[in-house]
């Protein structure tokens, strides 16, 4: 394997503690990677050498949907099955102060003392995709440390924070009756990334309606919207259209996974076992259909692009020549002699020289 950079002594020592299964070693390794401190690349390189092993489950949804409580309930159940669980919980960084209040542990106090559970809170630090810039890397660390199961909780998302798909094998989208109707979920994004839908706080009014709407929306996506609609004016549309369709697949992905809509109540644990079983089913499907391999390849490709992009940016803006051209360019643009495009062109030419 191509080496990344020689290991300095601090990193080598850290790696030793990490390999010995020392929790502080894992905790510090995460800080090194999160802060992109020196040695982080060789650290990740070494830890990731065995390839991904852990089952990675992402939990996303709007603020207050109960993601943390659901993660805590799921982690408890995994522990009952004797699976060790790593949890990464992301909360937002304030764009104004740069600070963050990370409160996901509040909902996880019951499981926090279990030595088979490791919880790490991360601030987004300016990243906009619902995860922190290095959440994916932190999941790799937990995987490399030997957690067979990693749960990833995103920040409370709206409609476009969909980066979780790049971190998880299975994406669980959690909604609550108060999240609005299914049109909100259909607009974009959440509908497309869910492998499993969960309507949490299902004891509240409106949950049955949301479940029904979600199922209909999923059928729409799969092109079988008329399936559950009863006969109307004497014509059963579902039957009438049947002969025109070759298959009568329910709400299926093109590759053959039908996205289920489940209900839970994280606080009373209702529906959590069913959720875990469904996550297992999705896992089996991923493995049998070859989708796991496809997703892992996509992730690897994305990661290479990310690392190269970041590295190129660093190289570019570290060069005095480039910074000089930038400063000159700003003046020339102010003087009306150049545009950002002509200045950028010059900078790229210098870089490629």
């Amino acid at each position: 394997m191509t080496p990344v950079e020689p290991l300095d002594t601090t990193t080598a020592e850290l790696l030793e503690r990490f390999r010995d299964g020392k929790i502080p070693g894992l905790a510090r390794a995460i800080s090194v990677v999160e802060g992109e401190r020196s040695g982080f690349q060789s650290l990740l390189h070494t830890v990731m050498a065995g390839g991904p092993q852990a089952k990675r489950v992402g939990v996303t949804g709007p603020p207050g949907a109960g993601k943390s409580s659901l993660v805590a309930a799921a982690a408890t159940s995994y522990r009952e099955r004797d699976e060790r669980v790593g949890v990464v919980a992301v909360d937002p960084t304030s764009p104004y102060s740069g600070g963050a209040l990370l409160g996901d542990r509040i909902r996880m106090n019951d499981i926090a003392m279990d030595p088979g559970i490791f919880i790490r809170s991360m601030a987004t630090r300016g990243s906009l995709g619902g995860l922190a810039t290095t959440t994916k890397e932190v999941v790799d660390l937990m995987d490399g440390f030997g957690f067979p199961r990693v749960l990833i909780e995103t920040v409370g998302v709206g409609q476009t924070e969909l980066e979780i798909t790049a971190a998880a094998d299975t994406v669980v989208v959690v909604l609550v009756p108060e999240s609005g109707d299914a049109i909100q979920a259909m607009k974009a994004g959440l509908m497309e990334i869910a492998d499993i839908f969960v309507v949490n706080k299902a004891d509240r009014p409106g949950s049955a309606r949301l479940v029904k709407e979600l199922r209909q929306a999923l059928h729409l996506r799969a092109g079988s919207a008329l399936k559950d609609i009863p006969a109307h004016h004497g014509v059963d549309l579902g039957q009438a259209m049947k002969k025109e369709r070759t298959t009568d697949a329910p709400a299926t992905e093109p590759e053959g996974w039908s996205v289920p809509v489940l209900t839970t109540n994280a606080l009373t644990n209702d529906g959590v076992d069913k959720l875990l079983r469904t996550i297992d089913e999705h896992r089996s499907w991923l493995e049998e259909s070859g989708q796991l391999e496809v997703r892992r390849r996509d992730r690897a490709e994305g990661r290479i692009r990310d690392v190269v992009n970041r590295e190129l940016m660093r190289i570019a803006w570290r060069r005095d020549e480039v910074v000089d051209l930038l400063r000159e360019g700003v003046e020339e643009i102010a003087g009306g002699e150049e545009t950002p495009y002509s200045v950028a062109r010059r900078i790229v030419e210098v870089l490629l020289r």
Partner: protein
Amino acid sequence: MSDERKIRILVAKPGLDGHDRGAKVIASAFRDAGFEVIYTGLHQTPEMIVNAAVQEDVDVVAMSVLSGAHMTLFPRVKELLDESGADHVLLTGGGIIPEDDVAALEERGIGRLFGPGTPTTAAIEYVREWFAAQNTA
């Protein structure tokens, strides 16, 4: 991507008293000062606090103690931190703590403790200065 290292701080509320307004005020102030604050809620045992401090790899643990149990709680958390190899972590805090006790606790390796009426800026400055000293030394 900033080169400046973020200060990570655990704000903890140990013991049985349920008065968490102080903890929430200081947690918000730390956040507004640009720190990454991990807040774990009420009724934390010293073991829970140290467990969280280790997993989160924090630089500082700040405890709010209003129950009068400070002479037990602060030394116990300090002891557990040291045992966990987290002796580099600053343990500080605040609450209703008599001056003699503050002095006694400082002797035992506990950082500065702040009483009622302290402006949040004093605690922020203290943490910043401590952190700067750690990272230049």
